[in-house]
């Protein structure tokens, strides 16, 4: 065991897999010599050489497109898009190609590929360093979408993603890279070294994709969250005193519907929180699924607390970001409904 930040845990996952499997290659913009703008690949080129970890031209469709070609050859690329906000030029390759290769070729060609991308706001990143585009991936048949919320999960989920035979979108909440963040931007951030989940086992281990984690047991309501919102939900529950059961979904597709339905049937109430914009966000899918599975146990309308339906602003960061006060109000209103 070692204390790690999320950055170190992600790097460690790639290190473990590059050592175990020489088909694993890592590349992206500034990923090679420099070690990544967030340091997630620091030292990998030095350790494994330039043909295993290398810098790429600034071309997202080129990075994803070449990685797809490599995956169909038999490699296991784990590539980086510098910010999720910049994945759009690669969207055709992701949706039309990576997601559908297995299906359209009847399994002749497969795409064991991981696309890592830093996601989420709360860092004064403005419009193009804060987006949460997960719903643009969960809507695509053939993709798996993962969002870790702590170093321990990040390592286990990333190793599982690299070993997975299908393309995995791995969204890393950059707000959580150095420590958990509950939305209280006026308080100092505690580093991962002071947090239990900063304790990460050495070597190879995995968390299965498609399994949620109950981070707080409770009986009053169920809160569905992922990424940074897991900590915001925890703060909101603590501050309102509501005995909420908080579920960190960890994987959005495939979704752990059993854990979700079991919880909502027990609590009878459900609040969904995400940073992404409301309309057609992943919360809409969650609300629909919970309604279908738990209609007769629901004692209140399902509520969503999300980013507003606007581009992510700069100066209005904390009016946009669904912080503990806004989430807390939703918890109280759902209890009173």
């Amino acid at each position, binding site marked *: 065991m070692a204390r790690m930040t999320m950055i170190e845990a992600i790097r460690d996952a790639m290190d473990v897999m590059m050592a175990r499997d020489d088909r694993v290659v890592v590349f992206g913009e500034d990923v090679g010599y420099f070690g990544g703008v967030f340091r997630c690949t620091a030292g990998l080129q030095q350790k494994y050489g330039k043909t295993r970890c290398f810098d790429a031209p600034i071309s997202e469709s080129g990075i994803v497109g070449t990685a797809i070609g490599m995956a169909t050859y038999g490699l296991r690329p784990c590539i980086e898009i510098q910010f999720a906000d910049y994945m759009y030029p690669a969207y055709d390759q992701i949706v039309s190609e990576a997601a*559908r290769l297995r299906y359209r070729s009847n399994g002749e060609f497969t795409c064991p590929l991981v696309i890592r991308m830093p996601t989420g706001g709360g860092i004064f990143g403005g419009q193009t360093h804060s987006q949460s585009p997960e719903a643009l991936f969960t809507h695509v048949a053939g993709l798996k979408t993962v969002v870790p919320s702590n170093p321990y999960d990040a390592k286990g989920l990333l190793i599982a993603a690299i070993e997975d035979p299908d393309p995995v979108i791995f969204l890393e909440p950059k707000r959580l890279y150095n420590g958990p963040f509950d939305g209280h931007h006026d308080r100092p951030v505690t580093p991962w070294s002071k947090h239990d989940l900063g304790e990460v086992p050495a070597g190879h281990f995995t968390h299965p994709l498609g399994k949620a984690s109950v981070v707080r047991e409770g009986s009053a309501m169920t809160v569905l969250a992922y990424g940074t919102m897991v900590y915001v939900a925890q703060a909101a529950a603590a501050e309102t005193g509501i005995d909420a059961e908080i579920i960190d979904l960890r994987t959005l597709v495939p979704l752990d519907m059993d854990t979700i339905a079991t919880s909502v049937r027990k609590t009878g109430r459900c609040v969904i929180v995400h940073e992404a914009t409301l309309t057609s966000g992943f919360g809409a899918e969650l609300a629909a699924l919970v309604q279908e599975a738990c209609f007769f146990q629901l004692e209140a309308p399902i509520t969503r607390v999300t980013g507003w339906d606007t581009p992510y602003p700069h100066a209005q960061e904390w009016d946009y970001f669904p912080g503990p006060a806004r989430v807390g109000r939703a918890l109280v209103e759902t209890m009173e409904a």
Partner: protein
Amino acid sequence: MNDFRPLTLHVPEPAVRPGGTPDFSNVKIPKAGAVPRPEVNANPEDIRDLAFSIIRVLNRAGEAVGPWAGLLSDEELVEGMRNMMTLRTFDARMLIAQRQGKTSFYMQHLGEEAISCAFRKALSSGDMNFPTYRQAGLLIASGYPMVDMMCQVYSNSRDPLKGRQLPVMYSSKEHGFFTISGNLATQYVQAVGWAMASAIRNDTKIAAAWIGDGSTAESDFHAALVFASTYKAPVILNIVNNQWAISTFQGIARGGAGTFAARGLGFGIPSLRVDGNDYLAVYAVAKWAAERARRNLGPTLVEYVTYRAGAHSTSDDPSAYRPKTESDAWPLGDPIIRLKNHLIVRGVWSEERHKQAEAEILDTVIAAQKEAESYGTLHAGGKPSARDMFEGVYAEMPPHLRRQRQQAGV
């Protein structure tokens, strides 16, 4: 106060529209044998002229001339002839089958048969093509079963792709034919990645990327050239310039600048332009580019100058946008007739043998078609199971898809 007149937008137009007289006087055709054949390790800077000329082997008299000639034996040429004739016959039969309602869609290769048929012969087993929807000659020339191709076109019970794909979107890993996508140009950059993987693994296999003139305007074309050039990937970057992208003449994609081959020069990629209707020239250039790739000398870009003699697809009527007789005026002629004349000049073919070969090939194709139709056509007979619709989205079916399959009652 403005010293300038109002700006105007330039929109290129083809020289001739329906009702006009076809005119290809702007297409400069060098004499066969006129373009030199450099060493494969030539400095790209020293062979820039090759991107602006047209490498040709067969002259008007049907003789193979010049430094790119002399690579193929009589037997290989006769085989090439039969492959091209097979592809043309296959196309004709599938076109009729579509008109008869046996399938929804088809795309012909009419006039472009030499390119994919000859190119395939320059590759080795294990190399991978990343084709578009107009290179089925790669399959025919590699011995892929014609019945399987037809079953794919019919989406029947023997369709290798289980009815999931539109007709002509074939896939055969074993035959070095990457799964075709409807999304244009995506495969161009994937081919570069596949080639990079071969280099990363210190393999000896090479990749071939394919794109049409129109799709070079897609951003993946640009990405592919950047990556191929940066990493010196062992890939052959093929551009089939058949003058037309559905109704759009090649000038709309070209920006009026140079040739398509010339696009490679800015990336430092050796770039050649070749007569796409000359089986011998296509083979010779493909062989040259393949050798460069195999010797780890990096990518080569090849523009095949040809003409799309048929409609874009069974959903297209070219008489709405170009003269009906334009293909007759195309100065590089018909690839089958040109090779036929050459084989006759070589003394290994004759009008009689040609007729005989046509009849044999037609019989073979009809027999294959009968067999394929015995497994069903799109609207009649055997078809893939509805269960197959849910398989293969992921390696293992996730719970939500299992539920949907149950809901579908299959």
